[in-house]
């Protein structure tokens, strides 16, 4: 059973509510902190994601631009290297040309054809050009530079020693032929060097290749024409002096000269490279001038004749070939210069373009990043911060967010709505707390009133003890503070002893007030009453129809008599417990007070010998229920009392009460309960 004063939920209601509020706020703050921790710990912020994305794209573009720029720089370096190589290529070529011509010119005095340019001048020019070659190679700092320089220097020394010999006065024809051979060999050495230098600087450019081919062609034609001429002249000089006819090996060389021309021309056609003007003139000169002159000299030698006019024609044809070759070489060089200049400046422009592009990408990336931070990340962070503040219950004004992004403006607007809702919710909560506090206050007051009323009700109840020859023990437990059960035992003025018990239908304050009224009515009716039946009928007669009905039982004993009278008005049958332990219900029932005008109560005798007991109780005992909803009922009470029949009166009340408490479901509401034991002593 529930203790009446064990639970006072209203006393600390406001305290506990405040605590709940504080706990809720702390909880929210924890939640917000956790949220932030989670985001920092395992998740990525919008800023990080977008910046990483931008950085990857930007880095990709920068790498691509960088690769392109590097490619351009490589090409640029190649063309620059080509230009630098011209510093030693061209003097080398010029010295070869000089030596070719010198190899012919050295024999001309023997035939009486003085050269146009003094031989010493040519050799000096060749020597000077070789000096330039040495400077150029040294500047280029190639891997085999020293080896090449040594070679060039040896050739130059040979030229210088030849120059000294040419200055001597008596040089015979045989010496001139030998010198021509030496000059020719020197030129060949330089050609070989040139071949090695071609290997050194091979460039992946068709146009450059074609231009080199053109100059090679010119150089080759020059070489073959002069070699052939020198060979014929040597033969002529030799036969003039020795009068011996040597076998001819020269005729085959004619084909060599012819062979190259169409090949080069067709290559030019195929490559789409614009050939130099002189390339058309050179083969024609060879075909129309040099080859006929050479053929004439060859035929002359074969016939063993000596026609100086034919020899002079060959020499002048060789000079013509030299002129045409040099023109071709000049044109080729000019074209090469122009081409290299164009390529170098183009590659340089492209290099600048790609470097500029890469820089632009970097700058653009930074600008986009800054713009993103300003337009999105910062306003976003501001909104996020305000959301977190709102989450921990900080309801300060929502600061304006500067952004042009519609989404962020919408988020910000939503945040303001959240704040408005939060403020309203807080206000409602405060109002609810206040209302709750007022209710709790009213409840406290009401409870204080009820407690006062309960005290009054308790005071109206008699104390356990002896009245006349009877001992009374009682138990009273209202369902709330006060109840609708009342009982009393008293000695009337004529010495009779009366016991009555009242149970007003329902319970609580109303039933309690009614029970007090019934109690007073009972007292009034007992005053001067003749018998129990008359008392009940008087009370029923006087009872107000508007008030609830109540059940009652009244027992009266004359002094010194063991037989009394009892009347029931709807009240449960009392239990008679004989001193030998026999237990029986007494009574015939009766209509409750206030139900009908003609109740026709029946009075029955009650016998209580010494040691016999009568137990009267309200139906609250029967209505107790266990966990299965089963009522305690008459049979269980009878069995319980039979079992406890030997227990003394003082111990019997607590024994019954304890058993009832053990049996009943403590969670279940219970009706008012009261019990009085009357024992004849």
């Amino acid at each position, binding site marked *: 059973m529930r203790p009446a004063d064990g639970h006072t939920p209203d006393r600390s209601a406001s305290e506990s509510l405040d605590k709940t509020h504080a706990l809720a706020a702390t909880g929210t703050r924890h939640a917000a902190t956790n949220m932030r921790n989670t985001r920092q710990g395992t998740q990525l912020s919008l800023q990080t994601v977008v910046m990483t994305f931008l950085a990857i794209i930007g880095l990709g573009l920068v790498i691509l631009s960088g690769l392109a720029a590097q490619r351009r720089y490589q090409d640029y370096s190649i063309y620059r290297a080509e230009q630098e190589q011209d510093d030693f290529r061209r003097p080398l070529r010029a010295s070869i040309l000089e030596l070719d011509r010198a190899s012919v010119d050295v024999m001309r005095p023997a035939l009486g054809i003085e050269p146009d340019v003094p031989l010493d001048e040519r050799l000096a020019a060749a020597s000077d050009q070789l000096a330039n070659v040495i400077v150029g190679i040294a500047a280029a700092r190639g891997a085999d530079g020293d080896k090449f320089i040594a070679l060039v220097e040896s050739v130059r020394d040979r030229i210088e020693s030849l120059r000294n010999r040419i200055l001597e006065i008596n040089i015979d024809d045989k010496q001139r032929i030998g010198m021509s051979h030496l000059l020719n060999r020197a030129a060949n050495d330089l050609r070989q060097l040139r071949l090695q230098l071609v290997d050194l600087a091979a460039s992946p450019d068709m146009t450059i290749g074609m231009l080199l081919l053109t100059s090679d062609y010119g150089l080759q034609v020059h070489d073959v024409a002069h070699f052939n001429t020198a060979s014929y002249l040597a033969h002529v000089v030799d036969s003039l002096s020795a009068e011996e006819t040597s076998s001819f090996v020269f005729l085959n060389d004619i084909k060599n000269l012819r062979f190259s021309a169409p090949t080069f021309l067709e290559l030019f056609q195929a490559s789409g490279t614009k050939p130099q003007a002189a390339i058309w003139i050179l083969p024609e000169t060879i075909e129309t001038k040099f080859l006929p002159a050479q053929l004439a000299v060859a035929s002359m030698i074969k016939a063993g004749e000596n026609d100086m006019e034919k020899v002079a024609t060959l020499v002048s044809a060789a000079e013509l070939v030299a002129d045409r070759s040099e023109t071709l070489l000049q044109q080729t060089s000019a074209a090469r210069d122009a081409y290299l200049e164009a390529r170098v400046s183009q590659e340089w422009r492209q290099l600048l373009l790609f470097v500029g592009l890469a820089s632009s990408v970097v700058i653009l990336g930074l600008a986009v990043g800054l713009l993103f931070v300003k337009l999105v990340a910062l306003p976003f962070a501001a909104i996020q911060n305000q959301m977190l503040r709102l989450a921990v219950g900080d309801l300060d004004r929502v600061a304006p967010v500067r952004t042009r992004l519609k989404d962020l403006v919408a988020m910000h607007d939503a945040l303001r709505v959240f704040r408005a809702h939060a403020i309203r919710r807080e206000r409602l909560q405060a109002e609810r707390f206040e209302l709750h506090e007022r209710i709790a206050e009213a409840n406290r007051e009401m409870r204080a009133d009820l407690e006062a009323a309960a005290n009054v009700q308790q005071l109206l109840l008699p104390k356990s003890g002896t009245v006349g020859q009877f001992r009374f023990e009682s138990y009273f437990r209202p369902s709330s503070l006060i109840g609708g059960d009342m009982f009393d035992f008293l000695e009337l003025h004529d010495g009779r002893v009366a016991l009555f018990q009242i*149970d007003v*239908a*329902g*319970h609580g304050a109303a039933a309690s007030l009614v029970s007090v009224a019934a109690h007073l009515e009972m007292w009034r009716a007992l005053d001067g009453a003749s018998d129990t039946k008359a008392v009940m009928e008087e009370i029923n007669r006087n009872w107000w*129809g508007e008030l*609830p*009905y109540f*059940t009652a039982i009244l027992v009266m004993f004359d002094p010194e008599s063991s037989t009394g009278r009892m009347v*029931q008005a*709807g*009240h*449960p*049958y009392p239990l008679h417990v004989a001193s030998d332990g026999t237990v029986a219900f007494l009574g015939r*029932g*009766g*209509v*409750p007070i206030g*139900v*009908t005008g*003609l*109740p*026709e109560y029946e009075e029955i005798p009650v016998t209580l010998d010494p040691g016999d007991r009568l137990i009267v109780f309200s*139906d609250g005992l029967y*209505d107790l229920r266990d966990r299965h909803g089963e*009522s305690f*009922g*008459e049979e269980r009470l009878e069995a319980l009392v039979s079992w406890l029949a030997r227990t003394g009166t003082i111990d019997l009340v607590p024994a019954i009460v304890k058993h009832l408490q053990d049996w009943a479901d403590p969670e279940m509401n219970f*009706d008012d309960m009261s019990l009085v034991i009357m024992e004849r002593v």
Partner: protein
Amino acid sequence: MLKSSEQVRDRVLVISINEPRLEANNAPLFRQILLDRIEDGYQQIVIDLRNVQFIDSSALGAMISAVKRMAALGSITLAAPNAAISRLLELTRMSKVFPITQTVDEAVLRHAG
């Protein structure tokens, strides 16, 4: 919410209660139903208690206040009470207030006759 069903047989209103217990917590509703029906003009009412296992003093009070509200010729008959309810009705001598019959048919017949 009180589970109950009603039908009119021979101008007699039969209210069948389908709650196992009629007690303090549903007695006010029960009382209101009875008063409403009386207000509606029914003067012959049978309360069918076949499905009720227990009634307490509050429910008894509801029926008593209802019968007090009725005109002189009106009556409420309690039909088919179980043993426990019969014991209560006997204790309180309710036969002086309400006719009590063993079956609903008997109650209707009694009113109609």
